[in-house]
């Protein structure tokens, strides 16, 4: 006789407590916006479960994190469309397994790491960072990740390496926006080597305790909290150490509007709008934008003696 145990459910199929507790919000969102937008974050959270063993970081802000719902439904990820609702609607096509991140260029030990090995490269830390978009809005996001420096040091950069280039995935089959032009795909971002090695700069693989939702740049993305959001490339497939300043996607798309550094700076306006204030998502009143997005005490020394109006 076959006796069925009530615990035949695989742990990964159990709705996580976080999701379960937010079921009303998901339902409300489903009614308001249409089902497709909410199915994804819900199912991904259920399927992927949580990361065990993450540590807190002293580099986290104490500010209140933006709602999970907002962090995962209001995104700029042009590979999936230019409307901020598009990524949540369309990024379900992105395949995040298998995924290889290759680190190459001016390094002693180039390597190609599978995403599941990358996640185990270093202990995952929760980093609660402010995120300021160049468009004038901001969020507070509890990322999960580890310092980019850990990865970079493991490949042993050569003396000639001065910059780091980050290349995002650009698969026309799964990323519809790539077929629409506008940006010279793949999306390329870059940092100076010292910026890339800075302890604030992380590779993120999750947020809110869960693997990154596709619309937030799964399975691995860059997070550089003192720069405008677009500097933090999503869905990264290649990291190259190079000698010269990389030509980034936005510098190519609109050279008069976007510079290489793109540090958050209330004093230097975008040519078409002011950067003096920002709207924190979820808040009614606008806030004053802070120099280096509030991280000046940690990063301002990187730019000592530089004219930030010139190197914007």
């Amino acid at each position, binding site marked *: 006789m076959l006796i069925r145990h009530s615990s035949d459910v695989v742990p990964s199929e159990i709705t996580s407590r976080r999701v379960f507790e937010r079921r009303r919000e998901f339902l409300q969102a489903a009614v308001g*916006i249409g089902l497709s937008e909410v199915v994804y974050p819900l199912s991904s959270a259920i399927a992927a479960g949580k990361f065990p063993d993450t540590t807190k970081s002293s580099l986290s802000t104490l500010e209140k994190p933006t709602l999970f719902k907002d962090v995962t439904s*209001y995104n700029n990820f042009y590979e999936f469309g230019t409307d901020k609702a598009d990524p949540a609607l369309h990024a379900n096509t992105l395949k995040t397994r298998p995924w290889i991140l290759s680190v190459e260029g001016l390094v002693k030990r180039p390597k190609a790491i599978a995403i599941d090995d990358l996640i185990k490269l270093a202990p995952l830390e929760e980093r609660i960072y402010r995120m300021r978009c160049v468009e004038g809005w901001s969020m507070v996001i509890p990322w999960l990740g580890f310092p980019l420096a850990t990865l970079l040091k493991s490949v042993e950069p050569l003396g000639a390496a001065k910059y780091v280039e980050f290349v995002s995935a650009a698969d026309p089959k799964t990323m519809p926006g790539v077929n629409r032009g506008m940006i010279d795909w793949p999306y390329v971002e870059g940092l100076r080597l010292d910026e890339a090695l800075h302890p604030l700069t992380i590779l993120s693989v999750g947020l809110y305790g869960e693997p990154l939702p596709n619309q937030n740049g799964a399975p691995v993305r860059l997070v550089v909290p003192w720069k405008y959001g677009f500097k933090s490339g999503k869905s990264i497939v290649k990291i190259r150490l190079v000698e010269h300043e990389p030509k980034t996607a936005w510098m190519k798309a609109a050279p008069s509007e976007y510079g290489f550094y793109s540090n958050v700076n209330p004093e230097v306006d975008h040519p*078409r709008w002011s950067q003096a204030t920002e709207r924190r998502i979820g808040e009614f009143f606008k806030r004053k934008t802070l120099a280096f997005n509030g991280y000046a005490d940690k990063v301002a020394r990187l730019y000592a003696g530089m004219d930030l109006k010139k190197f914007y």
Partner: protein
Amino acid sequence: MVWRLSCNPTRRQLAAIKIALFLLCLAPLLLLGWNAWNDALGANPIEAITRALGTWTLRLLLIILTISPLRKLTGRHWLLRLRRMLGLFVFFYAILHLTTYLWLDKFFDWQAIANDIFKRPFITIGMAAFALLVPLAATSSNAMMKRLGGKRWQQLHRTVYVIAIFGVAHYWWLVKLDVTSPLIYAALLTILLGVRLLWRYLERPQKWQEPSSIRCRSKTMAKQ
């Protein structure tokens, strides 16, 4: 029945049409209010409200500009009698759009607003469009029409073409990179203004054909 109504409605039919149009013009605002009330405007509701109000200002402007060509094509002159209400709705949505900017975006920080007007072309041209709308709204009554006289009134109200161009430019200059949507508005506006120019050319008085200077001028203007 329907044909007769669309050909030449009676007074009562026209009144019914106007009421229906009034409610139709209010619908976007009611929908916006409903969505705001139900927290269905997404993560950045203030941006969503500002955008929607601006979009509807522009859409109504384009709808107004279709009336006169539509009348010409169909011979239904009564269509002209809907323009005043539509025009006032353009003004209404423009005021709401401007108010969201002044209040919810700038919180009446006049210094910041002045900076925007002088430094940012899309704000400059948006403000100019609004400023040009004010006299049109102010002279929309029958009494004002009489006071100005038909011809002068008509000349004044031709600034709606400039307003529409400014409105589309305002939209075009504010988008970050993807100009698909402003391009659609620009294309529609080009068609609406183009048919007017074309008709004007086709219906030009015969005597205009003789002096070469005028023809040259109109040609170069068309090129621009």
